[in-house]
Every structure is written in C-alpha cells, then in structure tokens.
C-alpha cells in the first residue's frame, strides 16, 4: 500500500500531460484574439467563423457520411470475419485468412494508403472502375481498416460465449439463422456497437490514408484541417476541436448511462 500514492501521482501527472494541451486549446477557442493562444477577451467569433466556413462544413459532411458508411460496412464485414475465426470449423487457407484479417491492424498508415491507392489505380486500368477517386474509395479503405478492429472485438466476444447456447435454441426448434439472430446476435450487440464506434472514430480522424486514396473530388475534414495547420494554426481549428470533444463527451456519457441502465435491469453488460 506504500506505493499507492506514488502510482496515483504518476496517474495524475500522466493525465495532466494528456489533458493540458486539450484544455488550453478548448479555453482559447473562446478567445477574441487574432494571434492564436493570446487571450483577447471572451468571444464566440471562431465558432461563427467555423459555421461560416463553407469549405470546412462541406468537408465535415463528407467525413460524416464516409465514416457512417465505412463503420456500417466494417461491422458487417468484420462481424463475418470474427465469426469465421471463432466459430467456423477448419477450412483450407484458415491460417492465411487469419493473417490477412489482422494485417490492417499492423500496417503503418502510409503503407496502407499507398497500397490501396495503387490497387485502385490498377483496378481502374483493368476494369474502368473506379473512374474517379473520392468518397467511395475512402469509404472502402476505411471499411477495410475498421473491419479488422471489429473482427478482433467480435472474435473475442464469441470465444467467451458458449456455442451450446445456440445449440440449445436449435434443439428447441429454431432454424440455424433464427437461432443466430435471436440468441447470438443480441449477446454480440455490445461488441458490434463498440466496433461501429471505433471504426467511425478511426475514419473521421484519418488524414493519411484518405489523402492517398482520394482524388480532387473528395476532401475530408482532416484533410482540410491538416492543410490549415500546415499554413499556421487558425483558432477555427480550436473551435472545431471543442465541438468534436463536446459531441464525443456527450456520446460517452450517454453510453455509460445506457450501460448503467442495462446493468440495473439485470442483463449482462
């Protein structure tokens, strides 16, 4: 117990390091000063500038659409991959299947981005599709990355669940798809929701892969923010971070509340 204060001190210092820049950034989003990080009195002007920046708003919408689509596709595909790894019996090429499923998790962004772009270019020269790179190619790239994370979550959850649960449902007369949908799927739901959120977060935060696989038609929010930061910080980026952090914080609070409620009703978390 002697070391408890030491460990607690380490935790507090670490959290301070993580949070200090974020808190300063949030505070200075409300500052009425041209030069960033110089206090010029309270103001909401950067939020107004944010709302009036058409290029930024357009990119934000594109990012949201791509992230929703990519996360949904990632849950469907990653769910199937996780199911195959946990429940499908032995089949030829299983080791390769497992290795490929884990590959996107360990590739550096520049390698993922470059390889997918070159693949799309080759595909276009062979089949004529995709004629234009943009939202669709970013969505496919992000879904591939997200699916790898979903697969890990789903596989872990399925290996905790007893396969006998589904067998019991079948013994009681449920057809295999019905047994899966009424027994396994509800038990899997928390992992699928977590996987969707993770895939969504990865997608809205990605600048490298999106820059590679996109064309002139598709500029996502991180691509715009990156070019703004390269030119020098604009306080609009701070205001944007405050909007994103508040949205994420409220979502987290809602998720925790939902978890509390479902636990108090006696269901397994």
């Amino acid at each position: 117990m002697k070391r408890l204060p030491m460990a607690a001190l380490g935790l507090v210092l670490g959290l301070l390091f993580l949070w200090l820049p974020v808190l300063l950034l949030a505070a200075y989003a409300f500052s009425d000063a041209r030069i960033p990080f110089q206090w010029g009195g309270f103001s909401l002007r950067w939020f107004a500038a944010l709302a009036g920046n058409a290029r930024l708003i357009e990119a934000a919408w594109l990012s949201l659409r791509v992230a929703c689509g990519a996360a949904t596709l990632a849950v469907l595909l990653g769910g199937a991959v996780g199911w195959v790894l946990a429940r499908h019996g032995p089949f030829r090429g299983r080791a390769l299947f497992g290795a490929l499923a884990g590959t996107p998790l360990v590739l550096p962004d520049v390698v993922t981005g470059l390889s997918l772009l070159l693949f799309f270019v080759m595909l276009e020269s062979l089949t004529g599709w995709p004629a234009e790179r943009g939202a669709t190619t970013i969505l496919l790239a992000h879904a591939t990355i997200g699916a790898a994370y979903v697969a890990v979550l789903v596989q872990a959850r399925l290996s905790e669940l007893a396969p006998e649960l589904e067998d019991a449902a079948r013994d009681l007369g449920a057809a295999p798809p019905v047994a899966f949908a009424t027994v396994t799927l509800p038990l899997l739901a928390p992992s699928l929701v977590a996987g969707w959120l993770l895939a969504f977060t990865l997608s809205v935060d990605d600048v490298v892969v999106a820059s590679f696989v996109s064309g002139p038609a598709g500029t996502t929010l991180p691509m715009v923010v990156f070019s703004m930061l390269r030119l020098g910080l604009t306080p609009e980026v701070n205001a944007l971070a405050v909007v994103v952090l508040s949205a994420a914080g409220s979502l987290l609070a809602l998720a925790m509340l939902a978890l509390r409620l479902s636990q108090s009703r006696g269901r397994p978390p």
Partner: protein
Amino acid sequence: MRRLPLILPALWLGLLVAMPLLVVLVLSLSFPAEGIPPFSLPNCAEGVNTESFTLLLEDPFYRDAFLGALAVAGGTGLLCLMLAFPMALGLARAAPSWRPLLLALVLLPFWTGFLPRLGAWIGLLRDEGWINGLLQSLGLIEAPLPLLYSWPALFLGMVHAYLPFAVLPLYASLSRIDPVLEEAAADLGATGPVAFLTVTLPLALPGAAAAFLLVFIPAAGEYVIPELLGPPSAQLVGRVLWGEFFQNRDWPVAAALAVVLLILLILPIRLFQRLEARR
C-alpha cells in the same frame, strides 16, 4: 449458400488486403514513366526494374530515413512505456468504482481528434506561443526560443499521440496480477521496491512488450507528426515516402520504400501477433 458467410469475407480480404500488398510489390519493380499513372509495369521486353531498390540501398538519404524512423519509433516506444507504467499502475490500484471514469479520462483526449491536438502543441510551442510568452513575461529569455519544428517537439507530439496505446495493454496486464502475490513476497521479507522489482515487474512484462510494439509499429511509418512539429531535417521514412509519391511523383520508389519498411517491420509485427495469440 451455406458457405456464403465464409466466401464473402474471404473475397473482401483477398481483394482489399492481399491484392494491394501484391500491387505494391509489383509497382516497386516497375519502370518510372512520364504520364498518368506515372509508371510502366514489368514486362517481357524489359523485364523487371530493380533500380528503385538499388537507389534505396546506395543513397544515404534513404538509409538515414529508415534508421531515423526506427530510432524515433524506438525512442517514442520507450518514453511511452516510462510514462504509461505509473499511469497503468495507478489505474490498476484505483478503487474499482473510480476505474471507468479514470479510463475514460485517458481515452477522451483522443476524441478531440488527432490533428486538433497537434494544433494545440503548435500553439504552445510556436514563437509567439504560450511557453515563449510565459518565459518572456517572466524575463527569463529575451528572444523567443525556437521550440517548434525541433526534435523535442517531434517527440512531445509522438508521445502525446501514442501514450493511450501504451496505457491500455499495461493496465490490462497489471490489473490481472493478484495483489496477494506481493503480500506473500512481503511476508517472505521482500518489501517495497524489492517486491515490485521481483514480482510485479516480471508479471507485467508481456503487457509492456505489447505496449511497446503497439506504439513502435505505427510510429515507424508516422508522417503527420514529423511534418507538423518536427525539424525540416527529420526526413523519416513516412515523410520521404509521402514526398516521393506526392511531390516527386516517383511511384516505383514510393512503392519500394513501402516494401522495405514492411520487411523491416515484419519481425516486430510477428512478435506482436505471437503475443496477441498467447493472450
């Protein structure tokens, strides 16, 4: 029909994971060319072009890009471990009712977005930024210190971005250690630091290895942080690859850089997958 749940994901993995890697390999052996796209594939008449690889091996610029990236990734991994260990220990020893909140506090800065957090560091470190302003108003310095676009700024950004990746696996392995073990060690005469070094630390090693690799692997190819915070001399492999592709439009050399980076990372990646499989 019954094989559909297997065939669809297998098709996806083959098409969007395996094929792109094969294409990179083929492209790294292609000939640079004028036009769109700027390469011509290996063919019967000309064979393959290994000049991109020869260039990477012979030009010290590329060698330094790889060595620099590995050194920065290794340094970032070690710094993250040093910071994450006490944090994970604090988390593991906090009262159970506090843990979800503390974990959320570790993860939530993530959700401001990766780029805005780098923007915050730019605001702190730039010439007319916070730290220089504070030092000047205290009269400690006359002219602003060149903090931004430096190696320390690069490492600050890297550690800040990757720290949560290191905290989670360490926390997972530390929270599974039975506190009774340390009490037993204490009963046998090993107190405080001795019990920690001989009991807790060895048990946390697999978690520490996972934490290190989870930081090291993505950090080795990092592009954005060296670009936004690092000095111009920090020509690490991620930045060099980006430049070859977007500025020089030399796709074969960019592909060759990706292939060599993957070869260098295969050993740590295999190690990581081995560790994951054992959990």
